[in-house]
């Protein structure tokens, strides 16, 4: 096992309690949902798909195309290749997708199926029936990593499958964006707009803003409608630069660069003043254009929001739980504004988190968050919707970030990046603090309430 620094506390418990983590195949399926005309397929028992489907529907409030190879006892023993083949043929006949995005699961990986090889055979012997329906496969055992890792694996597989190798041509105003799992459709849209403002055209992979931004297509579509098209992917090798967002996109970015020679501009985060400044400088450099007036103005608005907001953030104790890259982006914003990351929980010990300004990071679950929040006297919980139970028990406000947000509408439009997204986040969190402000009372300054009382009035 890899050795981690003392900063990571790996919760060595046998019973994970109120999981923070969701499965890698679910992350991979979500990445596939960012492709146009796509239908994700889990190679596993039907429950694997059903649970993922319910969660995606509850979060996005959208019909989600999603299928299963419906493995049963017999096929689990004898092997699932026939199920994959039948599933692929059924789907291509019924839904006519451009792409079927296949993921393995714990069940089939435990069996040790070589699904990648099976799919090559299936493709070859069904060329006619499949027509122009493409297949792509990512190996995503449930017992390794979480959503973020599954998303990363799927994007790498998509690049291998659909992006051509370098051919010496360049489209001078075209850039690639490799969007991370932590980016909402709102984030993707914001980034595309920022890129466009510099006179550049962005090809986003995966493009959830195209598929899951909650639009009304005006007809019935059995696959995704919108997202990265095969044609778009077919010209990614000609871009002048690739903007990769989130540490978990590094593998995909390296693969894309090795294949196409398109140089990568890597961003660990696009949330917060510094991070967005770096993006602006990079976009100006790529395009040769000055920073547009709109964003100069937005920067100023963010600075102003930080000025107004810092009163509320200063010395607040935050209990934060998220997958590594969202944690990194949001965590930094809190410390930027003078709040303390009192309890931090994540799903895997990602090395870049060592630089997060906090004492320790627990690789654990939402019970660790709840216990930590109680022990450190946290003022605010920040995690996905499953934090609601801890919020009720502790009587602490909960700011929902990440996936899933099943008890909110408009989750796909929540925007955490860019000057505008950061500004909105600062304001909404500050408003949450204001709502839960301590009411002043004559007891505030009594001798026996030494020290802490005034801080509580913050």
């Amino acid at each position, binding site marked *: 096992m890899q050795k981690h620094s003392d900063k990571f506390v790996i919760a060595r418990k*046998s019973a994970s309690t109120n999981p923070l*983590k969701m499965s890698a195949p679910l992350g991979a399926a979500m990445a596939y949902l960012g492709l146009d005309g796509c239908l994700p397929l889990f190679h596993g028992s039907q429950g694997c798909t059903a649970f993922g489907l319910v969660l995606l529907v509850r979060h996005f409030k959208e019909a989600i195309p999603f299928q299963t190879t419906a493995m*049963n006892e017999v096929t689990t023993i004898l092997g699932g290749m026939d*199920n*994959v083949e*039948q599933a692929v043929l059924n789907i291509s006949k019924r839904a006519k997708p451009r792409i079927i995005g296949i993921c393995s699961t*714990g069940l089939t990986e435990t069996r040790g199926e070589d699904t990648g090889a099976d799919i090559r055979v299936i493709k070859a012997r069904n060329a006619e029936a499949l027509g122009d329906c493409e297949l792509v496969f990512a190996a995503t055992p*449930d017992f390794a990593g979480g959503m973020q890792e599954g998303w990363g694996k799927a994007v790498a597989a998509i690049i291998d499958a659909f992006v051509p190798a370098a051919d010496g041509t360049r489209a001078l105003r075209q850039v690639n964006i490799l969007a991370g799992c932590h980016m909402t459709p709102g984030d993707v849209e914001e980034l595309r707009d920022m890129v466009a403002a510099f006179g550049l055209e962005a090809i986003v992979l995966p493009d959830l803003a195209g598929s899951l931004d909650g639009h009304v297509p005006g007809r*019935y579509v059995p696959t995704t409608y919108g997202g990265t098209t095969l044609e778009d992917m077919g010209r990614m090798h000609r871009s002048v630069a690739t903007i990769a967002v989130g540490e978990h996109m590094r593998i995909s970015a390296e693969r894309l660069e090795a294949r196409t020679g398109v140089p990568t501009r890597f961003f660990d985060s696009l949330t917060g003043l510094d991070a967005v400044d770096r993006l602006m400088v990079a976009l100006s450099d790529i395009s040769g254009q000055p920073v547009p007036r709109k964003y100069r103005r937005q920067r100023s608005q963010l600075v102003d929001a930080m000025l107004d907001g810092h009163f509320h953030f200063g010395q607040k104790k935050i209990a934060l739980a998220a997958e590594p890259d969202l944690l990194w982006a949001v965590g930094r914003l809190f410390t930027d504004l003078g709040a303390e990351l009192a309890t931090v929980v994540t799903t895997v010990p990602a090395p870049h988190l060592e630089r997060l300004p906090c004492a320790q990071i627990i690789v654990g679950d939402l019970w660790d968050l709840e216990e930590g929040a109680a022990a450190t006297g946290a003022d605010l919980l920040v995690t996905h919707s499953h934090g609601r139970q801890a919020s009720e028990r502790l009587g602490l406000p909960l700011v929902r970030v990440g996936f899933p947000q099943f008890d909110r509408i408009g989750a796909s439009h929540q925007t955490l990046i860019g000057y505008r997204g950061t500004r909105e986040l600062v304001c909404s969190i500050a408003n949450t603090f204001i709502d839960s402000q301590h009411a002043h009372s004559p007891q505030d300054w009594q001798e026996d309430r030494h020290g802490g009382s005034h801080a509580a009035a913050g």
Partner: protein
Amino acid sequence: MLKEKIQDLFNEPGCDKNQAKSAAERKKGCTTKGLTPGAAAGGCAYDGALIALQPITDVVHLVHGPIACLGNAWDNRHAASSGSQLYRMGFTTDMGELDVVYGGEKKLWKAIRDVIADRDPPAVFVYQTCVPALIGDDIEKVCEAATEKFGRPVVPVNAPGFVGSKNLGNKLGGEALLDYVIGTVEPDDAGPTDVNIIGEYNLSGELWQVKPLLEKLGIRLRACITGDARFQDVATAHRARVNMMVCSQAMINVGRKMQERWGIPYFEGSFYGIEDTSDVLRTMARMLVERGAPADLTDRTEALIAEEEDKAWAAIRAFRPRLEGRKVLLYTGGHKSWSVISALHEVGMEVIRTSVRKATANDKARALDLMDGDESALVGQIPAPEMYRMLEDGEADIMLSGGRTQFIALKARRPWLDINQERHYAYAGYVGMVELVRQLDKAINNPMWALIQKDAPWDEQGQVRTSGGEG
């Protein structure tokens, strides 16, 4: 062991569906046709077992498997509790690669030990999933040893996903109760009017819409299996006088085997619909009297039914002016394919189609009767594009269905009402049917529909339309 159990369930004599099959068909089990690769919908057996047992509120539900089985699935239903909230917490062994290689039994053992130490529950339910089943983790043995060591029931629920559908999982969940829970505690307060309700999960608090009716009659709910149940309630359920089976296909084995083991007669009924609710009360009272309850229960029940029905119909009729003539597409199944129709008719709504998926022959007959013998109004599965078209073309003004088809209606910009298990509103009993009609009114008469059904004032190229002028 598990294989025998499943064969036993496929032979279930209490299940009309199974009994209608040939021996060979029966062996293949339930809903095999639902498992077409690439065209399947619905949960696995583990999902079904969890749905059936998780409403038991005061125990720890511990899932032995990789993160997907619980991480993607916990706290996702609205089974309500009047007490403990422990059942809403998610516990899993979160098997990693090393557990898969070396086996997960030790981790499971420690997990059981830890949850007992941390939560002190009256019992722990341990759910088997595909991966540990495949590598040969023997949860039954682990649970047996843990029960002995920790001195409280640790119940194995052996329904790994790949053994079949959600429905089979419901039954396997019921088997776990029969094998390890029901009859393990003797109550000191058994009485002549004790009943169990089996297969009711108290989603959105529906049990609480009907429980007051029983209380008014002096009927005591010994155990609801499993809505808002405590472990102790279920453990003493064998001392009830009568069992009511709700959603009979799901846990029929529990009712029938309780009759076999403890001589408790059961009947099937539903709290969806006014006549249904009355039937339930009437049957329950009759059977209790037959088993020794005071004879005046019958008359008191009739009086209550008359009073409640009058009240409910009056309340429903008040909605008639707002709902009359509206067309409903009823896309559910089982007994719901007919049980809400009379309330819809009472407010003057027209049911254009009702889906009789998962319905028994009896369900279908009742639906046909309510649809004036129009066979064409009884449909099976409606393909999604057809459903979209029916709504978009205005053949139906509203669809009543489950969450799976919600967005077909909404994307067609038509009203939709959830009447399946994820619903947020409770529709059981007399008050529930009034609530359903109230929700229908709320959905269909929202002024928003007129606004959003209007096209944008430009064409597909964004050219503003000049003709007409009103936009």
